[in-house]
């Protein structure tokens, strides 16, 4: 399937809700980039600006009880799954009020109560974890789905083959979502990845969608079918979404690299296909909302982010014994 077979459209309410959430991700990450420069965060961040439509399109078809596994570039997944923005900022600021009590930081923002089975610093680790979540879901038999977000770089881990095989063999409800942003760190995909990533799922008999990850409607429509496939008990599904991260691999890259690894023209070409702007244009075009209303949604997102910054800043530093206490259950 080149794209979703159907031409079904989200209704206005769904579209606007997706736009709102994309705005929250975009504004949050713009703020986090400033925060890193200001020294407000003890660690660095990997931003997903430009990739929002993938997280939002997929997660808007997931229920609260469904799981996802996230990556080192996971702020968007976290917010798309409906987790608390305040607790995310507090986490990234290294505060005890953070979603992981300041123990994980940017690469690990995850609210397990909302179905995020970890945001991982080990590239590719989510593949096995999501497959395990799929197994738990199958045993439970209530139709829960586990979606695994992973990058084009992660697709080169051998565990992808193992997990495709097992999930297909056991018909596990796992939705593999490859966020293909064209880079593994500083290596362009073409220099480290052969063939078409989604083709890797085909020999296992897994249905595959290859889509424009900067078109939230395309992602949503695909998710509608792919999630349904998983939920129905038919086994795993595989979506490869082509997208781009504007800010690069991580927030300190300009400092550590001696030469640029991508061109300004490339970045500009992708900005011209910006998923947030395209969604807004669609909303206006459909008259689902007017300019003033869209403006108001932006201000709302700004206010949420401002509140999150204040919440994070007001947080307290975790006390030194926290790690010792949390390491093992029962201590």
């Amino acid at each position, binding site marked *: 399937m080149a794209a979703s077979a159907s031409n079904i459209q989200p209704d206005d309410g769904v579209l606007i809700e997706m736009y709102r959430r994309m705005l929250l991700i975009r504004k949050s990450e713009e703020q986090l980039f400033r925060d890193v420069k200001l020294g407000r965060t003890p660690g660095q961040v990997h931003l997903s600006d430009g990739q929002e439509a993938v997280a939002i399109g997929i997660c808007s078809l997931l229920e609260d009880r469904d799981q996802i596994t996230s990556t080192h570039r996971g702020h968007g997944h976290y917010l798309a799954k409906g987790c608390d923005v305040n607790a995310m900022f507090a986490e990234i600021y290294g505060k005890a009020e953070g979603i992981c009590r300041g123990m994980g930081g940017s690469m690990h923002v995850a609210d397990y109560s909302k179905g995020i089975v970890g945001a991982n610093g080990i590239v590719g680790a989510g593949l096995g974890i999501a497959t395990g979540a799929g197994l738990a879901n199958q045993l439970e038999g209530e139709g829960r789905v586990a979606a695994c977000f992973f990058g084009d770089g992660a697709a080169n881990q051998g565990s992808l083959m193992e997990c495709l095989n097992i999930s297909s063999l056991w018909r596990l409800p796992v939705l593999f979502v490859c966020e293909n942003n064209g880079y593994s760190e500083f290596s362009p995909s073409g220099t480290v990845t052969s063939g078409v990533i989604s083709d890797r799922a085909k020999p296992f008999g897994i249905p595959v969608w290859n889509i424009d990850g900067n078109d939230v409607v395309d992602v949503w429509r695909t998710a509608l079918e792919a999630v349904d496939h998983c939920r129905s008990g038919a086994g795993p599904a595989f979506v490869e979404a082509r997208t781009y991260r504007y800010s690069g691999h991580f927030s300190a890259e300009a400092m550590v690299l001696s030469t640029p690894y991508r061109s300004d023209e490339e970045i500009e070409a992708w900005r011209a296909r910006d998923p947030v702007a395209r969604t807004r244009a669609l909303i206006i075009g459909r008259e689902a909302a007017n300019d003033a209303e869209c403006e108001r949604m932006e201000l709302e997102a700004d206010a949420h982010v401002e509140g999150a910054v204040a919440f994070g800043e007001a947080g307290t530093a975790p006390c030194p014994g926290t790690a*010792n206490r949390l390491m093992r259950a029962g201590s």
Partner: protein
Amino acid sequence: MPRMRFIQAINQALAEEMERDPRTILIGEDVEASIFGDTRGLLDRFGADRVRNTPISEQALTGISAGAAACGCRVIPHMMFSNFIYTGFDAIANQMAKLRLMSGGQITLPITVIANYGGGRSTAAQHSDTPFSLLTNLAGVEVVVPSTPDNAKGLMKAAIRSDNPTFFLEPGGRGGDAGDVPIGDCVTPLGEARVMREGSDLSLITMGSMTRMTLLAAKRLETELGVSAEVLDLQSLVPLDTTAILASVGRTGRAIVVDESRDACSVASHVAAILADKGFDHLKAPVQRITVPDTAMPYAPSAELPLLPSAERIVSAAKALFPVTAK
């Protein structure tokens, strides 16, 4: 002697050794862009045949290294952060560490595995491990830990020339440290510790990123307690310079081992065991260990930094060794 940064010294050693033996190849994720800077420029100099960016495939990276080494290459796989050693651990533990023995000595495995280790920079638990224990316990691999630019260059050269798999563990965040480095062929022999500071009352035994802080602690002990502390930099963890350890404690009678490993089965506990076995007659007090408690590294600095060995912790451990008025 020219002054250079830690990372430049490593880079120079790599370049010189690749020049020296054309069968030497370097492979790893983004070794061209090189986020740590240690492999920068090598692709331009030696070409894409000998310097290869790999996909994110650590299992393949370590497996390929074992295979290419068994077939005549001298291989330098770069694992980036030490935690990714775990991702590629099967070929390390089951192949690199065992093939020579299992082949009845038919092959050598000249492999130098580079990885950047250690915490203290809010990289959280999956980018901050110090994997000394795990690697030293394999027996089939050598492990070196440089502490200054000069031994970074010398140990890298020794590692590459070794016919055994050797881990070269770079202290994280220390790439910018500057120091004097001898020109040309300065090889630091594997298995030799070095005395960085002489002293008569106490041996501070340490390695890698801990040495700078331990030297500061030794100065404080001098001024605050009047204790003369010797600082012994192990340099190699495998092979371990047991002779130098025993000689130092023979001179001082007391030892504190400073190690960024988690405490259980750490280098520190191994050194303490050696001292209990073979240095018992020298010891005037129990051996102290300054290590990381048995937890993973938290992200928030307020929780992470107190877990790391510090001059403060060394000084208070020393106070316990020299009750009331020191000496």
